[in-house]
Structures are given as C-alpha cells and as structure tokens.
C-alpha cells in the first residue's frame, strides 16, 4: 500500500538562498518521523509548504494517493494536514477555546463538539492545566506550545507536523507532552512529522528520521537502525566534537556583579544575586518560577521593578535598560524574534542597535561601512549562516538569529552577560558554538548568568547553579551536587536544596 504522505522532489528558493533542493521521502500512517537538520537546513520551509503557506518551486506532495494541486492553508487543512508552528500561531486576544476552534466553520465545530474539552483534557494529560475561557495572552510560552500541539489533533487531521514544539518546555514537561503525542498517534493512526534539535527526545519519540542538509535530504533511517551520533554526523556533515568547559573554576575570584534587593512586580520577594569574575551561574527552575522576571528586573525592563546594582564593588544607577547597558550589563532575552531583533531590518542594523556613538564618523553621522564591518567580524567568530549581515534579520533561521542577538552585545563588550534560554531552537552544532562563546566570555573574566530550561546545558556550562521556585531562590548547588536529579528535585520542591 502507498504511504500516507509522499513528498517528492520539493524545491524552494528565497532571494539569494536555496532553502530546499529536491527533498523526497514518505511517511506512513501511525509513524512519527523526525525531520532533523541544522538551523537553516530547510525544515520549517518544508513544513510551510506542506501546510500550504508557501508554494514550492518544484516537486509534489501526495496525501492518501491524492496529488496536491493548490497550495493554501485552507487547502492543506481540508486535506487533513495541520502544522503546529515553530512560533506558536495563537491569537493572544482570543480565549483558549477560541484558539482551538479558530478558522473552523460552524459546521466543522458541530461535527466535533468535544473538540475544546478534548484539547483541555490532552493539555492536562501533558501536564498543563488551563480552562477554555482563559485568554491566551495569559498563557506562558510553554502553555502556548502545549495548546498548539494539543489542538493540532483536535479536528481529526491525518498528518500533523510539530515544528520544535517543546523549545519553551522543561525536559520532564516535554517528555510528558511527547508521551501523550505517541499515545494519540497509536490511538488514531495519524502520521506525525517531528522537528526538534533536542536529540534525546528525538531518539525517544520517533520511529524514523529524515536528515535535511543544505536543503537536500541527506539521510533516511529507522530510529532502531541508527544512533544519535550517526544522525548528528549526517546533519553537520562532519564528526561533531562535543563541548567541554574550558574556563577555569576560580572559587576565590572577587565578586564582579552584584544585584541586591531585586524585586519584580510579579514576584515581590527581594532577591540577591552575586557573580564572580569569570563565573558562570546557571539558573534552573520550572516554567513560571520567575527566572525571566529576575533578569528583566535586573535590567529594569518592566515598570515597577526595583534593585541595586554593583559591578566590581562600584554601585551603578540602573533605572532602565539604557542605564543598565551603560553599566555594562548585556541582556539576551528569551524571545529573540520579538525582544531580540527587528526582523525587517538588516542583521548589521540589529547588531548596531546597542551603539551609543561608536559608529559616528564626522559629528553625528554614522558610517554604515563600520557597522557592517564590525557586524561581519563579530558574526564570523560565530560562523553565522548565511554569512551576510546585509540580509534582513528575518531571513536567518532560528539558531542564526540567536547568534545575531548575542553579537549585538559582544561587539560592544559588557562585563555582565545575562542569557535567557540562549539555545532555544538552536541546532546541535549551533549550541556547541554558543556554549563555546559563553565559555570564552567567562574565561575573559566576565560574569555570566544563564537561565535555561535545558538542564544538561545548565549543568555543562555552570560553575554554580541556583534553583528558583515561585519567585525565590530555593537552592544553590556547586561541583558534584550539580546533576539532574538534585536540580529537578529542588525545582519541584520535593527536596530542599542545601543552602
């Protein structure tokens, strides 16, 4: 019998970029097929074509033996294809229920009366509690992702594509979510295309894997017949050497960055954070534990936050992100698209956004050339792809966009770097590069804070890990105490971490 979904020779180019170049593979009903590939390999583009929001230059898509003629989201949905976007495609102004039924005709809603309850139930099974009347504007990124995943199955789709569905989730959440997805797949015999940069979960959930490289499918295998190393090797095209921390532990180094009495309107408890020169402090905690708020309060991103900042013992008057910038604090925010970049302007302009007068030539006139050169040099060190800072920020894939956000601060130089989820949506190769970057900054004697939901990441980077719960520090771990069990336990409050 024919495969449920047949993708044949799909090609798609963007100005100056060939995103897809003859991708061909099949997916059977009841199969979870991972599409692996580096940032920019073309995964999202492929899914966009599958979902009808892009039309391929060449190639064809066949569902249930029927060849797709017209490419539009309506058509795709009618064919029973649902894409759970990499950027959760929800309308904040609408409620959870409305976001489930969005785009469905009254008739369709009648056919599946239990749709909303089903989604709520699934979200519960996935470990996220919410109500139909909750406005989506009130949901955390993780909850939004869960909603996008759960609703994808709500209206009896045949092919569901999940594009990096767990980037904002903690391991155990993600595990729970994907567990539920597996169940559903078995129950209903649908086909799932799965995109993720988290290799462990890829190995765990998928039945088979397709590796895209430079827009071509470079590898196809049953998970059972392959290994993580194998897949990664096919993705990056070379043996990937893992990351090992190089910056020296300096337990005796002087405290470089100290934030005291830090309060955020959402978590009024005062917090104190001190980081030594050359130290990497990881901050772990459940979603909503107030990690992002801590960082935002330090740089005074939100109205009503308070605190005192001292760097190398010298107090700084920090009242808004501007003064915090001048004090030498760099903040790399969690949601790069909305908070880190202006998508419709060139990469170099984004990078130069943190400038005061550094690029001025005569008087107030800035030199674009200098901006471009600086940006180019900075991003070369990070192997940005495509390596052209004149492209608009939106033309870069997730991982590379993250590099742009970091470059925004590195060219300028700061003494303190606050990273919020620095490798969200970044591929294995890219992660290692970013880890090295952070590691280098540390060995240069900067103070680093890394908020991350990715525990292995926290563990491999940090000299010290602080755990947050409900807006407070509930644990502090060093050396051998830094391991998944203790951190998770402390984060969930099962065992109190030793002070």
């Amino acid at each position, binding site marked *: 019998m024919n495969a449920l979904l047949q993708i044949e020779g799909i090609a798609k180019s963007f100005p100056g970029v060939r995103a897809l170049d003859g991708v061909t593979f099949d997916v059977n009903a009841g199969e979870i097929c991972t599409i692996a590939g580096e940032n920019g390999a073309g995964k999202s583009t492929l899914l966009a074509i599958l*979902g009808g*929001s892009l039309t391929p230059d060449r190639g064809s898509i066949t569902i249930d033996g029927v060849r797709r003629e017209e490419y539009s*989201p*309506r058509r795709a*949905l009618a064919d029973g294809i649902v*894409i759970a*976007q990499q950027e959760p*495609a*929800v*309308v*904040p*102004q*609408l*409620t959870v229920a*409305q976001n489930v*039924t*969005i*785009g*469905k*005709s*009254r008739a369709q*809603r009648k056919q599946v009366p239990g749709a909303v309850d089903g989604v709520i139930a699934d979200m519960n099974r996935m470990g*996220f*509690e*919410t*109500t139909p*009347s*909750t*406005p989506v*504007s*009130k*949901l*955390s*990124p*993780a*909850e*939004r992702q869960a909603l996008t995943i759960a609703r994808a199955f709500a209206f009896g789709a045949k092919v569901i594509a999940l594009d990096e569905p767990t980037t904002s989730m903690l391991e155990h959440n993600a595990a729970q979510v994907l567990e539920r997805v597996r169940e559903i797949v078995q129950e209903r015999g649908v086909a799932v295309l799965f995109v993720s940069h988290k290799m462990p979960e890829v190995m765990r959930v998928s039945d088979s894997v397709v590796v895209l490289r430079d827009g071509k499918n470079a590898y196809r295998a049953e998970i059972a017949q392959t290994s993580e190393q194998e897949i990664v090797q096919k993705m990056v095209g070379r043996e990937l050497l893992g990351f090992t921390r190089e910056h020296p532990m300096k337990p005796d180094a002087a405290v470089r960055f100290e934030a005291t009495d830090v309060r*955020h*309107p*959402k978590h009024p408890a005062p917090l104190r954070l001190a980081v030594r020169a050359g130290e990497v402090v990881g901050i772990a*905690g*459940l*979603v*909503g*534990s*107030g*990690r*992002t*708020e801590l960082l*935002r309060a330090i740089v005074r*991103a*939100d*109205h*009503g936050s308070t605190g005192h900042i001292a760097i190398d013992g010298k107090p700084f008057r920090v009242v808004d992100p501007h003064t915090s910038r001048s004090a030498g604090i760099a903040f790399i925010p969690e*949601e790069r698209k*909305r*908070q880190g970049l202006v998508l419709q302007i060139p990469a170099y302009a984004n990078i130069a956004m943190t400038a005061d007068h550094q690029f001025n030539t005569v008087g107030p006139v800035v030199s674009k050339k200098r901006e471009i050169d600086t940006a180019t040099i900075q991003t070369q060190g990070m192997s940005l792809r495509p390596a052209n800072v004149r492209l608009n920020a939106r033309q870069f894939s997730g991982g590379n966009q993250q590099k742009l956000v970091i470059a925004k601060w590195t060219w300028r130089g700061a003494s303190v770097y606050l990273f919020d989820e620095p490798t969200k949506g970044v591929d294995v190769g890219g992660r290692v590069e970013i880890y090295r970057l952070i590691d280098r900054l540390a060995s240069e004697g900067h103070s680093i804070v890394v908020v991350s939901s990715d525990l292995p990441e926290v563990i491999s980077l940090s000299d010290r890990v602080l755990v*947050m719960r409900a807006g407070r520090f509930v644990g502090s771990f060093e050396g051998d105490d830094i391991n998944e069990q203790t951190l998770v336990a402390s984060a969930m409050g099962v065992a109190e971490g030793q002070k």
Partner: protein
Amino acid sequence: MSTPTRSPRRLRVNVQTLGIFGAAAIIFIIFGILSPSFLTIGNLRDIAVAASINAIIGLGVTFVIITGGIDLSVGSIASLVGIVAATFMVSGGVAPILALLIGIVVGLACGAANGLLITRLKLPPFIATLGTMSVFQGLAYVTTDGKPVYNIPPEFVLLLNSYVGGIPVMVIIVAVVGVLCWLLLRRTVFGENVIAVGGSEETAWLSGIRVNRVKVAVYALSGGLAGLAGLILVARINAAQTEGGSPYLLTAIAAAVIGGANLMGGEGRIAGTLVGALILGALTNGLVLLNVPSFYEQIVTGLVVIIAVALDQSAKDWPMLKRGKSKDDVAATPVQELAG
C-alpha cells in the same frame, strides 16, 4: 502556571470599560453640577440624539479598526447615501422604506469596494479609503450638481426622526444596532475571525480563515452603517446636503478610539464606542449650556478627550498590564513577556 482563578481578560475588559465609563460618569456629573438643566431628561435625550450619528458610524469603524484597518471614507459614504436616497424619493418618487433600503445597499457597496481595494490591490487601508473618500464625495456632488435636496417626504422623516413611547427612534436604532454589533463581534464565528485577523493576520490566514472575505465584510459593514447614519442625517435636517457627512469622519473614529479601539488592531469594544460617542455629544451640549465661547469650546473638548482616555489608560495601568495596549500588546501581553 496555576489555573487562573477567573478570566483576567474579562477582568481587564471590565477595568478598561469601567475606565471610560468612569470618565464618562465624571463628565456628566461635573456638567450636572455646573448646569442645572444638563441632567434633565429632555437634555439627556438631546445628547443621545446628538450622539446617535457618531455612534452608528463609530460602530462600523470599530470593526474595521479591530482588523487593524481604518476607514476614512465613512463621511463621504454618509453624504453620498443621503443624496442618493433623497434623490430617489424626491425626483424618483420612490417610497421612503424602499429609499432607505436602497441607501443602505449603496453604503454596503461602497464599503465592499473599499474592502476589495484593500484585499485585492493590497492597498494600505489608509490610502484606499482616503482615495474613495474623495471619489464618493465627488459622486455625491455629481449626483445633484452639488445642490442639496430639499422637500424630503415627511413619512421618511417620521420613519427615522420621531418618537416611539417617548424615546427618539434614532436612539432606539442605535441601541438595536449596538446590541447586534455586540452579538456579531462577541458571539459569532465571524466576530472571532475579525479579532483573529486583527490580532495576527498571519495566524488567522494559516488557520484557514478567509482573511480577504473577513476584511471585505468589515468594510462593507462599516459602509452600510455609514449609509444608515447618512439617512438619519437626512431625516434630522429635512434635506440631503452633498457634504453632510464629512464632519463625522474624525469624530466617529474618535468615538471608537476613545472607547478603547486599538488602531494597531485586535482590540475594540462596542460599549466603549457608544460611550465615546456619548462623551463627545455631552461635551458639545454641556459647553453650550455653560455658554463657553466656541473658541474655548475647542480647547476644553480637546483637553477633556485627553483626560478621559488618560483615565481609561490608568485604569488598565496596574503593573501586570503595564505596557497596556499599544503595538506590543498585540504581539504579546506583558504577562507573556514575564512568563518564565
């Protein structure tokens, strides 16, 4: 994140609405104190009547604004519809009821034309409706060589400008239209789609919403209501003036925005728009009662509008909702920014 105890959006809406309702209340009370005749039934009725045209146009514009668009042609549509309907009745001897229907259809058509320009030619709504604003106005002139149409049949006037049980018909019309608009926006799939398109056009489109149809529909609605307003105008002044509608353009949009419609899209409140129109009506009326010279009247009006909306904003201004409306709220509310 723990389950929200009660729907915060509801709450927020209430706070917002309370904000502008509160402002309105304050304005009425102050005028009431300053001028004894202000809070009399008769005068309040006058205010309601005076506000009705802005209210009706404003309701249509509210839908447009929620989709993130703007409709600058409503004034011209009101003028054109008034002239056309009047000509049909006076020169064509068409029955009032029929003329009324024709008028509304013309309004819908004009609006639909706007919608098509915006969706098919992909014109920015500001430009499309700026263009049609002057096209429709021109058509109004051409219809009667710029001359007003007098001798409107009394039946027509009665139809829209009389009393039912002591309540002015046009106030009843506003009430009915208001309720219908609320139902349409908050209780139908179409309403959801309107908000979705305004909240995130891409999401709407990717979810299979026919973005173009939704847009065409809201502009048609806006045109139809502008047409209705144009007919009421005719009934009020016993004549159709070729430029009769033009003064309502800014005031009607103002009513919507004062009421909380967000020009960046995704937000708008039916009740708010009605209150916005009432505030404007009360201001004109009250300042006349207080015999404020017309020059100062403008200054006061401007200041009051600013203060009223400032109150509304501050009502929303408690920390969680800090970066209240404004662009990034649509992109994402602070709550989301703050989520760990």
